[in-house]
């Protein structure tokens, strides 16, 4: 410290000595502005004022390689950014124009998915003929505008804004979790001054309790109001708000209240400083120590794109990845915070239940030998395979092939019910596609509560409703919505009424240009499933829901494995197969109802968590979780995506498909593939769409080909398909954070 001070003094004095400007030794007190030419910004601007040489500029590319979409080619206008001409659609802001010209403007409050607030002033740029620098994020670009982004005036303006922001921002970067990925840190390095002039005390703000997920250090807040806008515009809860004025301004919940949104975790990402950080991740790691693996979320059927940040063998956090078609840049709280479940309740050794009812760890050799032996003593039709909700397509393919080779065809995926309609792909996927929902202007939700079943789909519906005031009708049990909706009824009777045009909502559907019907996958388990779907088909036909240019008939699935399972034809031969089974192979299936299973049945559980399926198991084969393996998952809109291994497997666990392949060899019915590539070629013969990774494969035929049904709808009301949003599968049930959430936030 002392040395540094001395050195800086020495530097300063030597500069005075060398300055030849005004003979005598004047007191040269260095002002706050670090770059001398900025001191006299106007003069410098005047010097620059000469018409610049006609642009002989290198071609610039938009920031982040973005593409510009011109909704109407006639509306293109031309502006000049630093002398470089760019064509932009009318209505873009100056900041967006700069981005297209390849200039990244510093910003705090502007976020391209939120409304414009214009209150941080960091994005000031100079515009020719305007007396003051303008906030580029809030200023619409006008034809012929000459924007200057790196003039001394703009630089000085930024430096000044930075100084005001840092006036009350604590200097606690060394203990701040945002350190290393903090916008304020980066921008103060790039645009800030090297010292501040404020000697008063910094203000401090009481921290708010926003619940078990978001940690607040409100003194760090710079009042950009991104979080407030996010909560009301994207999450659809008016929980956060701004209190007080001037330097007394605070972000808070008005009254002591937790943030009750299933998307609350996203405020952690959008907060440009460390005011809102992740509570479970607090003080756990620095972001530069983490290895990021681009993967897919499997806790629901949306398949949100995520990045798994790991350190060594441990998953440290999960953050979203941009995918405009699926999750935009948000993820649900379950996706973001379930990861601690990957460390608890893991199965790490093959185990066999002894005569005393306790599990004993054995070697893989012995475990597989026993399973193979038992499997051969049982009649083929008494063998049943159940794929769990987290299974990947490759292992489901292997399991189906194994069972078929053993002579059984009783295999299904939990959640699909006993009579799944696997023939027509359009009958079980989301035909409109998730991003397509934005074009809809009327929704009919049948037995589905998207808010808990697929939070990201719900966010799209919310976005649409917010943008176009689309009408939402809902048939199902009383549920919680974060947008305007009409609760039409609780049972399928209401559907029949709508189908026959007797219901007031049918006129709303009739008048809609792009109506959307979403049927929840909870309906699959109903006795009168076919009748319900028939009613839905009638509604679709009467209201022109399925047209060549628009397919608004959707099924919203619940689990990551469902769509792929149906594509691969995991359909049981008889719906009573569990009642007469003597050998059940549970591949990660924990939620299948085994009450009717005969007591002498032999149950093999292959999976990664000691969850419900293990209670009844005779043999446990430990498998790897989705963070540890490569696997294909198809989401509810029919887009296949691949998970990548981020961390090594736990203990003696093996990948799912390898276990089945090994078992097949021990059992003497060797499957003909030894690698993922070989399995995928096998999948190509069954469901080639699963190999088109990251590209949505729409269904070819529409549902109108469905056979007539004579079944009548029952009067039983629809039931909620997901009881607890935070705990839906083996991993989330093992997670402590999810348990806290369900205790505190479940309504």
């Amino acid at each position, binding site marked *: 410290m002392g040395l540094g001070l001395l050195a800086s003094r020495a530097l300063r004095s030597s500069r005075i000595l060398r300055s030849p400007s005004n003979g005598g030794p004047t007191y040269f007190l260095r002002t706050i502005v670090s770059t001398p030419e900025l001191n006299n910004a106007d003069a410098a601007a005047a010097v620059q004022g000469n018409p610049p040489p006609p642009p002989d500029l290198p071609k610039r590319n938009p920031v982040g390689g973005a593409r510009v979409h011109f909704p109407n080619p006639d509306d293109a206008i031309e502006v000049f950014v630093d002398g470089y001409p760019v064509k932009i659609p009318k209505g873009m802001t100056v900041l967006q124009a700069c981005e297209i010209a390849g200039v990244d403007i510093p910003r705090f409050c502007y976020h391209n998915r939120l409304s414009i607030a214009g209150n941080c002033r960091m994005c000031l740029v100079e515009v020719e003929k305007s007396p003051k620098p303008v906030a580029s994020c809030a200023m619409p670009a006008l034809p012929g505008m000459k924007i200057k982004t790196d003039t001394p005036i703009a630089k000085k303006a930024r430096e000044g804004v930075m100084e005001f922001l840092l006036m009350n921002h604590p200097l606690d970067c060394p203990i701040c979790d945002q350190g290393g990925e903090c916008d304020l840190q980066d921008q103060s390095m790039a645009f800030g001054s090297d010292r501040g002039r404020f000697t008063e005390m910094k203000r401090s703000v009481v921290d708010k309790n926003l619940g078990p997920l978001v940690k607040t250090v409100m003194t760090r807040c710079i009042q950009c109001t991104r979080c407030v806008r996010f909560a009301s515009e994207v999450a659809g809860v008016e929980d956060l708000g701004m209190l007080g004025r001037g330097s007394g301004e605070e972000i808070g919940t008005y009254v002591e209240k937790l943030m009750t949104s299933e998307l609350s975790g996203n405020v952690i990402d959008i907060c440009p400083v460390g005011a809102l950080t992740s509570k479970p991740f607090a003080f756990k790691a620095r972001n530069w120590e983490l290895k990021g693996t681009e993967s897919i979320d499997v806790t629901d059927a949306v398949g949100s794109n995520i990045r798994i940040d790991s350190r060594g063998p441990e998953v440290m956090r999960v953050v979203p990845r941009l995918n405009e078609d699926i999750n935009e840049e948000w993820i649900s709280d379950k996706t973001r915070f379930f990861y601690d479940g990957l460390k608890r309740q893991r199965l790490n050794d093959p185990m066999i239940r002894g005569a005393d009812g306790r599990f004993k760890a054995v*070697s*893989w*050799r012995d475990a597989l030998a026993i399973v193979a032996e038992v499997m051969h003593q049982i009649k083929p039709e008494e063998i049943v395979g159940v794929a769990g909700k987290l299974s990947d397509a490759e292992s489901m393919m292997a399991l189906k092939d194994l069972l078929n080779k053993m002579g059984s065809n009783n295999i299904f995926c939990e959640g699909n019910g006993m009579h799944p309609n696997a023939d027509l792909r359009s009958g079980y996927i989301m035909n409109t596609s998730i991003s397509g929902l934005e074009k809809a202007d009327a929704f009919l939700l049948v037995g589905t509560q998207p808010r808990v079943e697929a939070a990201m789909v719900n966010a799209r519906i919310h976005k649409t409703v917010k943008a176009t005031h689309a009408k939402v009708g809902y048939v199902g049990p009383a549920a919680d919505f974060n947008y305007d909706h009409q609760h039409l009824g609780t049972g399928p009777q209401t559907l029949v009424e709508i189908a026959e045009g007797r219901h007031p909502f049918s006129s709303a559907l009739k008048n809609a240009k792009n109506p959307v019907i979403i049927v929840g996958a909870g309906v699959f388990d109903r006795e009168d499933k076919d009748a319900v779907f028939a009613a839905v088909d009638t509604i679709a036909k009467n209201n022109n829901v399925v047209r060549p240019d628009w397919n608004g008939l959707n099924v919203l699935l619940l689990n990551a494995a469902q769509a792929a399972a149906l594509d691969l034809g995991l359909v049981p031969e008889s719906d009573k197969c569990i009642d007469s089974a003597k050998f059940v192979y549970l591949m990660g299936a924990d939620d299948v109802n085994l009450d009717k299973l005969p007591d002498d049945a032999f149950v093999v559980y292959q999976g990664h968590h000691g969850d419900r399926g293990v209670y009844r198991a005779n043999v446990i084969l430990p498998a*790897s979780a989705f963070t540890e393996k490569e696997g294909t998952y198809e989401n509810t809109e029919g887009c296949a995506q691949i998970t990548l291994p981020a961390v*090594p*497997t736990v203990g003696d*666990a*093996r*990948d799912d498909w*390898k276990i089945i*392949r*090994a078992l097949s*060899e*021990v059992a003497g019915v*060797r499957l003909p593939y*030894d690698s993922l590539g070989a399995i995928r070629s096998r999948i190509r013969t069954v469901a080639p769409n699963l190999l088109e990774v990251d590209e949505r494969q729409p269904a070819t035929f529409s549902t109108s080909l469905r056979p007539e049904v004579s079944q009548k709808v029952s009067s039983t009301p629809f039931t909620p398909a997901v009881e607890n949003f935070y705990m839906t599968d083996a991993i989330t049930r093992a997670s402590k954070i999810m348990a806290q959430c369900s205790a505190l936030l479940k309504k």
Partner: protein
Amino acid sequence: MAHMMRNMRVPPNSASLAEAKHKTLEFFRMCCRSIPEIMEIYNLYDVVSPSQLRSAVAAEVRKNSNLTNPKVIDMLLFKGMEELKNCVDHSKQRHHLVGKYVVGNQGLVQDLGHKDQGSSNFLKNFYSGNYF
């Protein structure tokens, strides 16, 4: 025995293969003669019998039975002598001997092999780990 080996030095090179062979046999005999003492020092009675140890040493020797270069044989003999001296002088500990001569090179987890006979490479790899 021990006193004889204490002043061990590098023996002169063998002139011919026959001489090297003779020396090898002599070395083997010396090993056999030290085995009772080694059994005593390291208290190996409950894990191994003298004859098993003898065959372990013989196996080590036979491993190199294909050598014809007297120089190489001399070198290996010297190494063997060194090992024997270490054993007799109690320079080793019990687990060294148990690990090397009683359990053998395969390690504690014995892969008896016959179970995996005829199984594919996939299965063999599967048993040994997830990553292959």
